[in-house]
């Protein structure tokens, strides 16, 4: 038998549940972008990601232009300069990888792509605005063929073996899976 204590608590449950329902159904003045002072978090994240992408595009635009016009040495110099201002920024590693690739320097190109992908996985995403899926796939396919052949000729060359490891790393990342 429920006594007075139980009844009070059951009434309390009803009252609080009713209050909750009322609260949820009342339109919130602060709804939309703001929730109690902080921006809606999903939107906030999107903003940050977008600002970051725009910033990278703006900041590294000179490098991309120099690369496009074939001025590789100047592009690498500009990258080095930007690297001092934004140390460890993976976008720099990816762009360096592309320049080295254009110069047919397989081993350093691979290493540079690996640094970039480790820093930001979006580069191996097919869908991301930063995606380099295509060019990294090409690096892996070509690299495994070329470097693989070289490794067979020089099985003791540790720098070639390291490049193979790098290529397997990129292959693994391209293959997907839970990170």
């Amino acid at each position, binding site marked *: 038998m429920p006594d007075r204590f139980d009844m009070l608590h059951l009434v309390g*449950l009803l009252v609080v549940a009713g209050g909750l329902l009322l*609260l949820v159904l009342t339109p919130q003045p602060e709804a939309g972008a703001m929730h109690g002072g902080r921006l809606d978090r999903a939107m906030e994240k999107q903003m940050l990601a977008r600002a970051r992408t725009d910033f990278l595009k703006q900041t590294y635009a000179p490098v991309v232009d120099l690369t496009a016009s074939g001025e590789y040495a100047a592009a690498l110099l500009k990258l080095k300069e930007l690297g001092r201002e934004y140390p460890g920024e993976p976008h720099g590693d990816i762009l360096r990888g592309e320049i080295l690739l254009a110069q047919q320097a397989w081993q350093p190109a691979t290493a540079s792509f690996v640094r970039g992908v480790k820093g930001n996985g979006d580069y191996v995403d097919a869908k991301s605005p930063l995606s380099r899926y295509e060019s990294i796939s090409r690096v892996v396919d070509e690299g495994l063929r070329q470097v693989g052949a070289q490794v067979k000729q020089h099985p003791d060359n540790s720098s070639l073996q390291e490049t193979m490891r790098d290529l397997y790393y990129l292959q693994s990342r391209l293959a997907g899976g839970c990170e």
Partner: protein
Amino acid sequence: MPTLDRHFWLVIVASLALGIAGVGLAVAGNPENSGICISCFLENSAGALGLHDNARMQYLRPEIIGFVLGAVLSAGLFREFNSRGGSAPLVRLLAGIFLMIGCGVFIGCPIKLFLRLTAGDLTSLAGLAGLVAGVWIGLRGLAAGIHFGRAEKQRGSGWWIPCLGVALLLFYLFRPGFLLFSTSGSAAQHAPMLLSLGAGLLLGMLAQRSRFCITGSIRDSFLMRGRTPLLWGLLVFVVVAVGFNLFSGQFRLGMYGQPGAHLQHFWSFAGMALVGWLSVLIGGCPFRQLIKAGEGDADAGLVVIGMVIGGGLVQAWGLTATAAGVPFYGKVATLVGFLFLLTNSLLWRDRTS
């Protein structure tokens, strides 16, 4: 008057130290009115551990580590360490989460409530009323037979919170790369390292010896009128804090423009009522839970872990109030907390007696 025995004087000394440290650590660099605040500190620490990403609330507060390890030291020295556990563990963990929600909605734990009050912040009066009301309801529940079951001696349970305390101390000293430390916001405000850690250790030891507890003081005042030493301790704490705040120029009487406060008095009341009610049912305010966890009480340890998770969630989900008021989901979470309490009151009531 209570009997003026050794325990009485221990309580007075602990309260004195807490009052001095509570204001003094804010003077020395902690955020305003937050020389000691278990909920703020746990939110900061959860952020430092990566459990939320509010970049203004990430700092591994050494005071927290000091409280736990001070209690371990003191309990070890005076042979009061007692490894035990098993009393409604999952419920206690969830209670820890809801404690942080109640504190977040009010902005501050019961200790900070008194620090805000003694700095002249009149908005904290609504919280005080809520805390007293919550303790009163909780007491009625206990009297009606709510009991979470007896804890058992468990040799292997009580050591793990002390171990976690040591691990966090190592983290604090060696700062592995994954720890996050805010460079702006209230978490960037902190007293000097060794002062914070030393004050934490000292207070932890004193609190372990004296059983200092904010909600316990209020509870005992209901039960024993003026005869409990804890009530006198609370008074000493208030007097010392008011004096120190006046002396250091931090006292500013008023309702508006107070640091870390808002004007939604109903929710201040509700948040602290949730905390008071929960605290009575689980046997101690957030501060006391840290101390009990250091004494080998694994159930209090689960409350502590719940509070750390809660510290992450209230920030990650934006449940905490700001000067702008209580956010929508903070209100929802508070009401869910009352549903949790009411349901548990019905589920855990011993109807045999």
